[in-house]
């Protein structure tokens, strides 16, 4: 005899489709146009930053850079759902979230320009730095969340990673920890449908990435990752559950990587225009702009002013970045341990002996 012992379904949430027309009632925050304008600004600002960073890389003034073009709604939406005292544990493509939470453009440029001080940002001090070894940050998020639990706080963690990262053991392990201990953490999967040249369908035979939550015993859901309202809404809901002891959630945000993987990549090697171009019609900025315009909450003049403001901000950040005096070689020794061991002090003296 066989009986059904478990069933599951994965729901997909969308509030604002590509045409900019709301599907049903919007969540409470989204009924305030000022909130929506703030989200829109966050995304435009992120795009402006991405453009500047790519330009700096192309002219040899930045290292390899991972643009978030087309995925701004994921980063901005998740950040807008967070409280300042929550902790963000990013991957490497959530510039929009870092900027929203107060990391400065100059700091981000320092990091991507190969200067460790970019990870010592002035705020938010408890957020983790950019994480390059794919997926390895997910267990940190479980650890931070356990610490919050042990401290009896109502803070929570948001951890971001990509579709590719969901194949890593680290991610599966983090979900398991978060599940068994009902930890206050939200895992946001930026499913941009590519991991360098490997398409989403080659990462897992599962229909959704959200359902990876099910095996860990936690809720998982999908959202339209190009709909910033849906991303913010879903993450806010998951955070509220986390704060009240309801445990972890996986939110899979389905979006698309409109650009190359990084400035070191040439995506034309593995995907053609016919694959990419339909996604330009889905991208997150126009749909929110259309909706705001339809509300009478956004005008051409405001758009122009915002673009000018963002241009000025990124230009200023570029100037500040380029004007930052370089670190001296001593810096690579000074932060290795809390107290420089005598042996390392000798190496430091040898290394820096020829410094002016």
């Amino acid at each position, binding site marked *: 005899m066989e009986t059904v012992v478990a069933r599951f379904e994965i729901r997909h949430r969308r509030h604002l489709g590509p045409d900019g027309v709301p599907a049903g009632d919007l969540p409470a925050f989204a009924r305030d146009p000022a909130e929506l304008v703030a989200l829109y600004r966050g995304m435009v600002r992120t795009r402006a930053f991405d453009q500047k960073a790519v330009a700096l890389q192309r002219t040899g003034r930045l290292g390899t850079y991972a643009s978030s073009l087309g995925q701004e709604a994921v980063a901005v939406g998740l950040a807008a759902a967070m409280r300042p005292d929550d902790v963000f544990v990013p991957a490497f493509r959530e510039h929009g979230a870092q900027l929203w939470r107060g990391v400065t453009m100059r700091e981000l440029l320092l990091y991507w*320009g190969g200067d*460790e001080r970019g990870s010592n940002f002035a705020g938010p001090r408890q957020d983790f730095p950019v994480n390059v*070894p794919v997926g390895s940050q997910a267990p940190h998020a479980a650890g931070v969340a356990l610490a919050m639990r042990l401290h009896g706080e109502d803070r929570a963690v948001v951890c971001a990673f990509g579709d590719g990262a969901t194949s890593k053991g680290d991610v599966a392990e983090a979900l398991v920890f978060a599940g068994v201990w009902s930890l206050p953490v939200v895992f946001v999967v930026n499913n941009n449908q590519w991991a360098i*040249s490997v398409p989403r369908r080659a990462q897992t035979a599962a229909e959704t990435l959200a359902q990876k939550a099910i095996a860990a015993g936690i809720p998982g859901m999908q959202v339209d990752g190009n709909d910033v309202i849906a991303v913010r809404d879903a993450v806010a809901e998951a955070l509220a559950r986390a704060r009240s002891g309801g445990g972890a959630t996986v939110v899979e945000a389905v979006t698309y990587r409109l650009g190359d993987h990084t400035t070191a990549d040439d995506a034309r090697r593995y995907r053609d225009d016919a694959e990419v171009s339909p996604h330009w019609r889905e991208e997150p900025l126009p749909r929110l702009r259309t909706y705001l315009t339809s509300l009478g909450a956004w005008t051409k003049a405001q758009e122009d002013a915002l673009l000018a403001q963002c241009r000025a901000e990124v230009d200023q950040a570029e100037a500040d970045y380029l004007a930052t005096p370089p670190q001296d070689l001593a810096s690579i020794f000074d932060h290795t341990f809390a107290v420089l061991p005598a042996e390392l002090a000798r190496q430091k003296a040898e290394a820096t002996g020829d410094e002016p």
Partner: protein
Amino acid sequence: MTERTLVQAVNAAMARAMAEDPAVLVVGEDVGTDGGVFRATEGLLGRFGPQRVIDTPLAEAGIAGLAVGLAAQGFRPVAEIQFTGFIYAALDQVVNHAARLRTRTRGRLTCPLVIRAPTGGGVRAPEHHSESPEAMFAHIPGLRVVVASSPARAFGLLLAAIRDPDPVLFLEPTRLYRAVREEVPDDAPPLPLDRAFVLREGTDATLVAWGGMVPEALAAAEALEKEDVSCEVIDLATLKPLDEETILASVARTGRLVVVQEAPLTAGFGAEVAARVAERGLMSLRAPVRRVTGWDTVMPLLRLEQRYIPSAARIAAAVRDAMAFA
């Protein structure tokens, strides 16, 4: 004439091995359509098809473990780890399985696999892309460790590694991928996996280097020649097993040893070389052994990486020191 860069030589060695032996497979992230992020596997998918050139999900522990299973079934997987810093996730599989399956089963199951990975800095790469982890792997019983330093040697050594009946870690310095071109014929023979290469003969000091440090050691030797200091330069190439005899014979002639490694000083492979000479060649030494290495710090990001990587000038200074000793 078939002039190749190091990365082209790596590609050619895999193509040759695949053409000669249907058991040879290539697995890894982005090795198929993309041809590998460094283009090491370019063209292999088109030539050998998706059954033999396999894009994997993003999972290094999985890739290494997969290779163990394939190898135990008689395939000869060549697994690519995309960047040096991501090889650590594969470590469990390498230490606990690939390197000891033969021992555990007393030869019943074996692991004729190769793990290829880039190594070293100097190409302005992102965080975790520039480390030199060879010593950690040389410490693992049952694993061969090879580091390439020229197109021709890369070709012959990789061919031998793929044909070898045991697991081999094959490290490729990213800095040298496109640094020079060299004649590398398609039918060049495999090279022995237990022999160091004397690249330059000399009488005053022996420079032992591997990987990205080999060109630096050669440049130092060149500079020192103008000062009438004659350096012998040895490319260790196969760290494990180590060709002690070539080193000892050289030191017996020169009386001075300078070991150069890009990796941090402490417990680096240079320590092993120095120890072997201390054990078996002490009486030939006319000066203390010198090591020129990276610092015992985290590999810095790109702005300071050139100040971390040992330079020809630092190597030459160490040789001058040794010369001044006696």
